[in-house]
């Protein structure tokens, strides 16, 4: 397998399970652990892999509140949406920022310890930003699926133990 293909396969595996060991990746792809480790370092250095995180099924009582915020932005000459987006991304409350097509421009995911905290972030920090025309906040009530992982598992069906 050539290096570029191997890199793509590695990224596909890490997207599914970022804790997969170099050895398992190597065994799956018919490579060696040291080759895989080297390629992962390259992917990290080149900014293809930006980080690793866990997919967590938060309990409602763990004190974290999340919201999706739609932001309508007045684009600037030359830089478009980038300046505003980069500025909003700097806030630690902001977990993700996407420029999207459709009715509004930026889609933010924001985390805080309470409804109050998020509300004051929106009214105190987000809405008054230069270039922000309007916002709409949606508090997340229940998570069913994230990053390709469905949280309610299908009942495991027993297969026959021997099938010719």
């Amino acid at each position, binding site marked *: 397998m050539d290096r570029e293909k191997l890199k793509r396969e590695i990224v596909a595996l890490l997207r599914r399970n970022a804790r997969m060991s170099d050895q398992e990746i190597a*065994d799956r792809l018919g490579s060696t652990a040291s080759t895989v480790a080297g390629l992962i370092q390259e992917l990290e250095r080149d900014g293809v892999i930006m980080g690793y995180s866990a997919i967590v099924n938060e309990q409602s009582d763990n004190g974290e509140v999340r919201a999706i915020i739609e932001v309508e932005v007045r684009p600037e000459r030359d830089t478009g949406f980038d300046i505003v987006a980069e500025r909003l991304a700097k806030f630690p409350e902001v977990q993700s920022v996407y420029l999207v097509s459709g009715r509004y421009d930026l889609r933010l995911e924001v985390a805080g310890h309470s409804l109050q905290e998020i509300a004051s972030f929106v009214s105190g920090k987000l809405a008054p930003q230069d270039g922000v025309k309007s916002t709409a906040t949606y508090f997340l009530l229940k998570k069913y699926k994230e990053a390709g992982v469905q949280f309610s598992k299908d009942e495991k069906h027993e297969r*026959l133990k*021997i*099938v*010719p």
Partner: protein
Amino acid sequence: MSDSKSCHKSWVAQHIADLPRSGIRDFFELVNTMDEVISLGIGEPDFATPWHIREAAIYALNRGYTSYTSNLGDLRLRKGICAYAKENFGVSYRPDQECIVTVGVSEGLDILLRAVLNPGDEVLYHEPCYVSYAPTIRMTHAVPVPVRTEAKNDFVVDVADLEAKLTPRTRVLLLNYPNNPTGAGLDWAAKKSLAAFACRHDLLVISDEIYEEVNYDVRTPSLASLPGMQERTVLLNGMSKAFAMTGFRIGYACGPAAIIEAMMKVHQYSMLCASSIAQAAALEALQNGAREREEMRREYEQRRNVMVKRLNDMGLTCFMPRGAFYVFPSIVSSGLDSTTFARRLLQEKHVAVVPGPAFGASGEGHVRCAYATALEDIERAMARIKEFLQELKST
């Protein structure tokens, strides 16, 4: 009152009574008495059927699509099959005459053999092979003629060995590549030489290609696409392996109109038609299932890499399978025969593999390990097999 013990008369037909009990049966019963078994003996996908396909079955129920279909199968599905065959296997068939939907490939093979064989006709096929071939041939009162395949040829049947078994009664050549249980596959050159053999001796070719899409090789067109072959080849395939739809029981046969017509006669009297609901799901799979099919294929490929490496590292040698989801390692280095190996591995380490002779006498010296099982279970099973081998050596 009847007493079965005093009943001297057997109601069972002689040729059925003469069928050997499946070699897998006793082993299956032994496995069922045990707990905590990691089974590498399961010849079906471990994935649930992709959701959009299940959803299509639900939709079929919702809109009351629950009647009989045409004996040949719903025309929309047959059109879907023919389009799929053209795109994926490189052969064109007419949906109205050259395609029939069956209840799995098992039924497809059964009605095909019944449609073409006269009593006493001989069918050449390669062993080790799927367990139903010899019995299904016998049930038509025809004669199964197995031809050995060898690990040294990566279990590809040798044309010279086929030539040696030819008689004036030989009528059919039955092929199954990618192969259950060995994982063998045919490259283009092998397909050409088998096609030439079939043409030379004017044989009908039945090509059971149920594992065709679970293929790790450079894909080549079907045997049926070679010159002189389409008119003498019936291609059998189905939804079970490629789309993880074993329980839906949908297969299909594509071939010359006269043979499909004859198969339809048997099918209409014995089966009438395949499940309408499952046919609706099958059409969805063929039209929109490529992505999931490819994802599953890649997962199998990676598991294969792991299993082949582990087995070879512990001295159970095997070649790199070209298709299907089986590895067929030699267990000769253990000093045990296949059946003893499988039984003791099960009893001592709670790992189930299928003894090679279940797939024909030439499977002796091998066991079949399926990798249609989660990789973590494969790793646990491999560790246990390694322990088993070490304990064998030290006693």
